[in-house]
């Protein structure tokens, strides 16, 4: 678990991995978007508006997956004091919030022509909005705090917040099953998919593509946080040297 705790060893892997994730991710997203917009037919009932699912579904997946990783990072920080956990959590929060916002925006744009409304307070939409606010809270908690200047670790409060917030993830997932909701039930379950294969395959491309892009963004942000920490540490040393030299 601590094999990659050493930032140098982590960077040796993260640095060459980043352009690959970024490049392959972009290609898959562009290919999937082209396939979803131009190659596959529209839905039998919704027509062209259904195509927004090729962005909406990956956004929802990354918004929720982002918080799941945030909670795992919080646990790794609390229990094992893993030195990269706090850095990873800080790096994940912003793209996680971005994709959650993208999910809400694309859902709203789709909701108007499909349901006839931009927004309703049903279980799925409300719990997803709560996720957006949770991200905002986490970012507020971890911006400009002490940990940012001390190796990037999370405060105990922020790590617990990440763990407690994870309770919302199964609620989002089950919201359309537990409660009558305007949002339709799950299309893709362990039992199979009620999206026909003719419409499904571009979703596979964009889902993988956006996930790789997310990974690339997280690695870039982690590298930046590590670089910032090193600059800060060096400046502190310089200041100390000058202090003793004078």
């Amino acid at each position, binding site marked *: 678990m601590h094999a990659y705790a050493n930032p140098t060893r982590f960077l040796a892997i993260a640095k060459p991995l980043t352009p690959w994730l970024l490049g392959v991710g972009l290609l898959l997203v562009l290919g999937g978007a082209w396939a979803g917009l131009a190659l596959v037919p529209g839905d*039998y009932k919704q027509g062209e508006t259904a195509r927004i699912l090729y962005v909406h579904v990956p956004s929802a997946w990354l918004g929720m997956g982002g918080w799941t990783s945030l909670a795992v990072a919080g646990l790794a920080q*609390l229990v094992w004091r893993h030195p990269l956990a706090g850095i990873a959590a800080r790096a994940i929060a912003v793209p996680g919030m971005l994709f959650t916002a993208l999910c809400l925006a694309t859902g709203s744009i789709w909701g108007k022509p499909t349901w006839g409304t931009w927004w309703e307070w049903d279980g799925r939409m409300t719990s997803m909005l709560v996720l957006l606010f949770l991200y905002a809270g986490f970012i507020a908690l971890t911006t400009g705090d002490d940990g940012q200047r001390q190796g990037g670790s999370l405060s105990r409060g922020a790590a617990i917040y990440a763990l407690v917030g994870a309770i919302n993830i199964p609620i989002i997932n089950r919201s359309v099953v537990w409660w009558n909701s305007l949002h339709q039930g799950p299309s893709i379950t362990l039992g199979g998919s009620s999206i026909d294969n*003719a419409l499904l395959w571009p979703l596979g491309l964009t889902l993988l593509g956006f996930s790789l892009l997310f990974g690339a963004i997280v690695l870039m942000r982690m590298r930046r946080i590590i670089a910032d920490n090193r600059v800060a540490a060096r400046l502190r040393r310089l200041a100390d040297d000058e202090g003793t030299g004078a």
Partner: protein
Amino acid sequence: MKAKHQRLILALVALVGVAGAGVLGASALRDEAAYFRTPAEVKAGKTEVGEAMRLGGMVAKGSIERQSDGVTIRFVATDGKASVPVQFTGIVPDLFAEESGMVADGRMRADGTFVADRILAKHDERYMPPQMGEMPKNMKAPKDVKATAWP
């Protein structure tokens, strides 16, 4: 026992506690957090006349009737177990159609009719190309004024 094992156990116990609280809360909300009530729930007497609520269900096949004023429709909402007649004056979404889901905002009238102020179409989880699905009635019609929700 090492300190990190203690922390792991503490964190797991706390997680189980929080998850349990979440599940309890969610199940307590079961009725309150529902976005709409079904016709079966209405028939079971869960609603009062005049109480603002949402009714959700399938629009029964062949049930949409346009009234003579041209802007009022009547149809039957069903969930397979019970059905409730609905009356609505206004514009319905494009996807509002027979044998398709809908959610209506409104009130029960004393005569058992649900009077809606607003109607939303509910989409189901199926996505398929046009040639595969059963063509809904409103798509078979030629693209003229009549090609809206009701034939």
